[in-house]
Every structure is written in C-alpha cells, then in structure tokens.
C-alpha cells in the first residue's frame, strides 16, 4: 500500500451530551481516493473539521506527513497540505475567474500593488494543472456550479494541497458535470494527490472510490478496498438495517374512485414535456429522476410558481387553471419546498406562528383582527398532531432540529387541509430517526384521504412511502413502477441508466 499521509487515531469528540465521534480512526494514503460515507449526523462532518483543524478532538492523535499533532490548528493543517473544498466554494462571486484563482497568492506575497499580467499567469498555470479551460475574464457569478467547483479545486492545488477534502461535491451538479469532476479527481490522483470524497450518494462512491470508509452514529463500521463492495452492502452499513417494506402498512388506494388530480400533456419550455398522469385519493405517487430531469419544475408548475405553457390540469374532474400560487391554494394544492430554511420557514418567528401562517385568514375576529386565543389553540393542536418536539410554540423556529423544522413546514400545509399535497425532498438533511417518522406521517396523511405527490431521489424513501413511482428523464416520464415492481435494485438500475443517457 502507498505511503500513509494522514492518520487520525482513536478520535473522540463530544458536543455537550452528544457523542459525535467515538474512538474513530481514519487514514489516507498517497494517491488514493478515499470515500467517506455516512448519513447525516454520522460524524463525517465532524471528522473533516478535526483533520482540517477547525475542531480540536477530545481524545486521539493526528499524524500528518509523519508529524504528530495532539491539537491541530487550521493554519497547521493548511501548511501540511490539507485543503477542504466546502459546499460554498469560498469564492468571490463578483470577481473574475483569474482573480479568484490568484487572490491567495497575491495576499500571501504581501505585495501592495496588483500586477494583472502576473494574475493571469498564475490563473493559466492553475488551469493547466487540471487540464481544463475556463474563461479567465468571466465573472464567477455568471458561471455554473461545476465551473466554480473547478476554481475551488485549482485554488486548493495552488495552495500546495496534498490532501483535498471534498464535502458533498456533487450535490448541485448535473450528471454530466459529475463525470467531468470524476475525470479531474482521477487526474489529481495520477499527480499523487489524495482525495477524501465525502458523500452519501452510493452510486457515485462505487464509481470513484479506491477505498470506502463508512461511519454510522459516530463510529466506523466499514473500512475496506472499494473493489467488490456493492451498493446494498454499503446501504446496510450506513443505516444498520436492511430495507424491509413488509412491515409497512400502506393505505388502500381507492382504485374505483375518480382521480383527485389528472394531468394531461403538461409542458413547460425548458422544463418538462408532454407529462400525463393521475393521482387517486389516498395515494402516494413518487416522482423521481436526477437533477435536471424536470421533477422540480413539474412540482412548481402544479403549485403555480412556474405555470405550464400548455396542457391541462384537472382537479376532482374539473379543469383547473393554475397560474399562480394563490390559484393552487384555492384548488386545494399544498407544497412543501425542498429548501425549508429558505422557502419554508420564518426562522426568527415563533413555531406557532409558522404553523398557522397558511390559515391566518381563518383565525380572525369579527373586526378582522387576529384572534390570539384561536391562533394559539390551532398552533398547539398541529404541533401536537405532528409531534413537533419543542417545549413551547413560542420559541423561534430556528431553535428546532432539521427533522422538527420539517414537521413544522408539513404542519403549515397540512393545517390548511389540502386535497393534494406536493412534497419536494421532504427529508433532505433530516437525520435517520426523524426520517422514518416523517415517512410514517406521509403514509398517515394519505390514509386520511389526501393525494400526495412525493418528489425525491432518495430510493429508500420512495420505497417506504409510494404506491406508484414515475421516473423522469430529460423532462419526460419514461417509466412507471407499480407497487409490486418497486425494488431498490430496479430503481437504482433505472436511475443509473438515466445518469448515463441524461446528457442532452
């Protein structure tokens, strides 16, 4: 095995009463791609922060390039060649590509004047290191995410990186961009750099890893050569359980009933084309597909954010003209957005107020003033019903954990008793335990008669909640899975197939 560059031994870290890492060891060798896999809250982010010097471990030792550290500072980590590429890339959106690449060197040189010729030379040199070409004059904010990521990688290289840590690097990339990133990673490997690739997307891990390390609940549960490791084994290690749907009780869909929602030939330019489907009462219909498949655009169209260009929508048999969010709300359509922090919650406002905001028009006195008693009753009822864990509805929404915040967002729409509820990635960034509870909640809501559209690319989630699943690719529905056809393998195979053919 190649030379070991970094070894973290028996690292433990506690935050208050929570054990984030429990005597975990991790080593990285020269020229390898090590994938660190785990669910949210498994301790992988804590590990990154420890080996980059942001956190000091409570126990354990770190060895880098043969140097022993009991506590590592960020500066020492950088000097030892450890570079972390965070999801925000740490770039200046208003400056050009060249300047973003060269700015660290400019600052490190201590020079007070700027030599633009030199800046362009540094930038060109940087681009050459990973064999890519980017327009040096372009302002970074005009570039796609993938290009910004390349700039961040180049910055890391110019800072003499030996280990590059990429934290969920593919989150915002299209499939083609992921492939381009993998080419760059392989190039870096050939130059002798080591990559720590942190992800929970198993199909990507299978593709890129030399060695795979899996964390669960602050412990290392697997550390082995990636060859021969399949997705099923990894999923089992990550969650600690086999996916078993036999115990799950799905609501009985009323097959004979008229559809709640019928969509015919719906089309949105640049979004999706000729989409038709039906949703029955008590049914959970999954819509899946990769980033850019049109799944989010479809959801936003049905909720009136991006009104469709052509096609028809029928709700309970009557044609519905949905041109705005208030149209959608009037027809009884609710939408729980993907990004709950930005689009779903008033973080600074009390939890109770967040819950009742969709019904505020019903909670007024004769004088059209807010009835604070009714308001509190209604809020408390929903907080109880959706089991939001909080000592009081008066606390701000930001005091809640991710899972509980998501419940508040759900409560907000459920409180309005929609006929059709669209959920977009309802458990993104939610820990495993809350995830199962939210899935239970989704099944219960359907059981009460609601029709639910679930947009997600989380395969276990789809399996555990959906009666039927539609697969989208390049804006079209390409496959429909019935309940009995839904298996992890089948879904995975189709998603991976999309990945290779999705490129327009």
């Amino acid at each position, binding site marked *: 095995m190649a030379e070991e560059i970094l070894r973290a031994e028996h690292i433990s870290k506690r935050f208050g009463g929570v054990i984030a890492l429990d005597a975990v060891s991790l080593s990285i060798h020269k020229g390898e791609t090590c994938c660190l896999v785990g669910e949210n809250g498994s301790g992988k982010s804590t590990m990154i922060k420890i080996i980059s010097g942001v956190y000091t471990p409570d126990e354990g030792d770190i060895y880098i390039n043969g140097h022993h550290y009991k506590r590592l500072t960020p500066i020492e980590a950088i000097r030892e060649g450890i570079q972390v590429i965070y999801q925000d890339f*740490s770039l200046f959106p208003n*400056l050009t590509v060249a300047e973003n690449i060269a700015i660290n060197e400019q600052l*490190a040189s201590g020079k007070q004047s*700027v030599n633009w010729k030199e800046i362009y030379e540094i930038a060109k040199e940087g681009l050459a290191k990973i064999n890519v070409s980017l327009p040096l004059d372009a302002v970074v904010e005009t570039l796609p995410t993938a290009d910004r990521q390349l700039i961040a990688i180049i910055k890391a290289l110019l800072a003499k990186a030996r280990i590059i840590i990429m934290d969920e690097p593919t*989150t915002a990339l299209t499939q083609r961009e992921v492939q381009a990133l993998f080419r760059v990673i392989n190039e870096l490997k050939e130059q002798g750099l080591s990559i720590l690739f942190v992800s929970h997307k198993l199909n990507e891990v299978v593709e890129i890893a030399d060695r795979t390390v899996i964390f669960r609940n602050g412990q290392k549960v697997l550390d082995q050569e990636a060859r021969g490791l399949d997705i099923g084994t990894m999923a089992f290690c990550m969650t600690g359980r086999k996916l078993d749907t036999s115990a799950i009780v799905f609501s009985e869909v009323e097959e004979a009933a008229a559809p709640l929602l019928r969509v015919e030939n719906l089309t949105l*330019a*640049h979004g999706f084309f000729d989409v038709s489907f039906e949703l029955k009462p008590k049914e959970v219909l999954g819509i899946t597909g990769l980033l850019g498949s049109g799944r989010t*655009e479809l959801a936003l169209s049905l909720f009136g954010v*991006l009104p469709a260009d052509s096609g028809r929508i029928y709700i309970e048999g009557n044609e519905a003209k949905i041109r705005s969010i208030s149209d959608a709300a009037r027809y009884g359509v609710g939408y729980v957005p993907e990004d709950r922090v930005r689009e779903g919650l008033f973080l600074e406002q009390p939890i109770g107020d967040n819950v009742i905001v969709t019904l505020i028009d019903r909670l007024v006195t004769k004088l059209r003033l807010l009835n604070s008693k009714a308001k509190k009753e209604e809020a408390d009822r929903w907080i109880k019903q959706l089991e939001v864990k909080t000592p009081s509805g008066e606390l701000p929404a930001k005091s809640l954990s991710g899972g509980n915040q998501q419940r508040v967002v759900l409560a907000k729409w459920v409180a309005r008793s929609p006929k059709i509820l669209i959920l977009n990635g309802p458990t993104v960034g939610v820990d495993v335990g809350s995830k199962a509870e939210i899935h239970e909640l989704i099944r219960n809501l359907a059981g009460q008669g609601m029709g639910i559209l679930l947009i997600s690319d989380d395969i276990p989630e789809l399996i555990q909640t959906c009666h039927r699943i539609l697969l989208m690719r390049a804006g079209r529905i390409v496959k429909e899975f019935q309940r009995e056809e839904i298996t992890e393998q089948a879904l995975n195979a189709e998603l991976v197939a999309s990945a290779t053919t999705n490129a327009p």
Partner: protein
Amino acid sequence: MLNRIVKTREFIVFLILVALSVIVGLINPAFFSISTVFDTLRAAIVYFIMAFGVLPIIISGGIDISFVAIAAVTSFSTHMLLLKLGYEGGTLLYYLIACTMGLLAGLLNGFLVTRFNLPVFNVSLAAFTMWYGFNLFFIGATANFDLPAGTVGYYARFIITARDPFVGKTGLHVSIVYVVLIGLFIWWMLKYTTIGRGIYAMGGNREVAIRSGFNVPFITLVTFAIMGVLSAVAGVTQAFLSRYFNPVIFIGQPLDVLAAIILGGASITGGRGSVIGTALGVLLIQVINRALILTGIPVQWQRLVVGIILIVFTSIPALQERRARRIGHTTEAA
C-alpha cells in the same frame, strides 16, 4: 473585447447620455454650445469629487450619507477659523486644513464601524445629523461671504477659455483638474492595489474576504478616510465656486450623489462599481438638469426623471433573473 464593453452598464449610461444630449440639442440648439459644456462640467465638479469619495465605501458593501455633512463642517469651520486669524492668502491652506479635518471625521466613522461593529448606516446617519448640528451650533448659523483676498478671483480661474456665440467669453474652471486627478487616483487604487481588490472582495463576500486574509477592518478605515478627505475637498471647492461658505451646504444632496453612483452601475449591496460609471452617472444627472431647463420643463421634474431611470435600471437585472428562473433547469438545487 468590444463586445464586452458594449454590454456594460457604463456603456448604457453613456448611450443614454448621448441620446439625451442629441434630443435636447434638436429641441434647443443652445444646448450644443461650448458654454453649456463648460457650465455643465462646472456644476458637476463637486458631485464628481463627492461621488468618487463614497464609491469605495459602496463597493465594499457599506453605505454613507454623512459625506455631505463632513463637506459642510470641514469647509465652514476652516473658513471661520482662517477668517478669525485674518488670513489673506490663497486656497491651498484652505484645502490643507479642511482635508485634515475631513480625514479625522472619516476615520471617526470608520473607527466606530470597525472597533465597535456598529451598523454602518446608523453611524453615517448619526454623523450626518451630528456634523450639521455641530456646524450650526458651534461655528455659525449664517452663510459667510467674506472671502480672503487671495481667494476672491479663484471662482473665475479657467484652465481653458473659449468664445461662445451666445454668451461671449466662457471658460472651464481649473478645479476640473482636481476631478481628473482624483478620478485617476481612485481608479488606480481600486484596480492596482491590494487594498482596492480587497474593497471589491469585501463587497463580493465579506466572510470569504476575512477567511482569505484581507485585513477587512483596515480596508474599511481606508475607505472612510478617503471619503472624509474628498468630502472636504468638495466642500471647499463648492464654497470657492459659489463665493460663499454655507454651514448647511449639500444638506439635501446625499441621495443625489448615491443615485449617480448607482446609475453608474454600482451595486448598493456591494461588489460592483467603477470610477468611469460613477462619472457618467454624475454627468447624466447634470445633463438631465440642464436639459429640463433648456427644453422649458420645470426643473422640479429632475428628481422624477432620475427616479424613473433608476427604477428602469434597477429592474433590468431583476427581470433577467426572472427569465432565467423560467428556464428552470439551471436553477434547480438538490
């Protein structure tokens, strides 16, 4: 290269400026006279200087309105002091004393913002109110017309003169040279110094600027120092051009200056802005003024027109964003 220039905000402002001049010139040929050019520039001089002074603060993501008060307090107190001492010399001493005061006043703002982390707008609002109050209460509440002998002729010192068929002998005031020098200095500072790039970096992403190792507090102090000094220059210049010192000079003007900067392509949230754009923005507002006079439209319309142009300009990027949103694919986040 040409393609990129054509797309810039600066170029659009330039086009509007040209178009407006042509239209006004067709309505009233007097607009195309050399004296109009000289007079427009003369009226713009102090606004150029103030706008150049505030521009770095705006680019860095800050905001200021106290610059007008600093212009007033530095020029008026310098004058009252020298008057008391019986000074009879030229303008240089005025500039030196006022600039020193302006430097200190700017640094005071910067100090409050950096040392105590106070919100920059609150500090500038406080300074705005405080300096005008200070002027009126401690220095004097009425305008003063007694100029020292060495400065009396300064208002008519021209760098070039010409004969104009309508008004006869006309000239361009020498202080336009200061404008050019100051403009060049700010341009150079923004483009060719590490501090200048730090100003843009701060405006683009303050957090990343700190993490990258820019000395953000120091850069903030520099921007406020520049603002203080240039406000003083503007205040003294205004007094000599109009031949009297006014304790509440510019009190209604801070928003006009900020409007000019934003017309010229600067972003109020920081990160964008240029000297050339700012200069064009100042000129555009002056030309609108003059155009209204020459076409016989009441001058009260000036603010309405500037406001409309600002709204149109501000909505262009927002409209572009909405179009991009409809295109969908690119905006989906996982």
